[in-house]
């Protein structure tokens, strides 16, 4: 039951969920939730492959760095969202249509 394909299925589901969130939502923070899901699906893939194919733990390291990068991305992205909100008083993605405020 616990096999590579089941892990890949879960990862696929997470990826699709993330894409759906990013397409369907117009709220920037909600879109960032989708990005987190996508990054997690990638990290899960790495860990699953490394366990079921050669078990040399390089994939774990990749997952670890993906988690680190996701955290940095969330920090900067949310800072931009907050700054955007301070200027425009909205976090709707369609209002972010100008390069300069």
């Amino acid at each position: 039951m616990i096999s590579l394909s089941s892990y890949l299925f879960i990862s696929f589901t997470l990826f699709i969920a993330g894409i759906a969130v990013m397409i369907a939502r117009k709220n920037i923070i909600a879109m960032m939730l989708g990005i987190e899901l996508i990054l997690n699906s990638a990290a899960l893939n790495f860990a699953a492959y490394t366990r079921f194919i050669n078990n040399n733990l390089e994939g774990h390291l990749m997952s670890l760095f993906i988690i680190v990068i996701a955290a940095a991305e969330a920090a900067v992205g949310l800072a931009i969202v907050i700054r955007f909100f301070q200027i425009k008083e909205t976090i709707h993605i369609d209002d972010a249509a100008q390069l300069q405020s």
Partner: protein
Amino acid sequence: MTSYTLDVYMPVIILMALAVGLVVVAVFVAQVLRPFKPSALKEQAYECGEDPVGTAWSNFNVRFYVVSLVFIVFDVEGALMFPVAAIFRKFVAIGEGAVLVGSLLVFISVLVFGIIYCWSKGDLDWVRSFQLSEDQVNQLKGIEEKA
């Protein structure tokens, strides 16, 4: 390196289930025992006896965010340093400790740069002191003199 079975995670699941069970049982028993007489006045938010004004879900000061930002950077760096710290003794024992000391010190010093930057820019101050320009100071003085 010892091998283990996944049974070591069993208590974690059992304890989480117990927590859920405790909450369900406690709330259910309370529902049976307690009185239930809701009224509009009871369900008001507590604002020291006044009628509540507006919603509490409004904007907050951005300093909360800056604090959590510094926190997450430290959190991630801690998470990266944990496995290195765990093997430190072994590397020292085989005489390769200098490499680890070097990489750990570089890592920590970058971290220290971050905290020094935030400190010097005042991000770590809860109450930010703003330097008033000379015009503003004079303006304030004028207001004081009038009063």
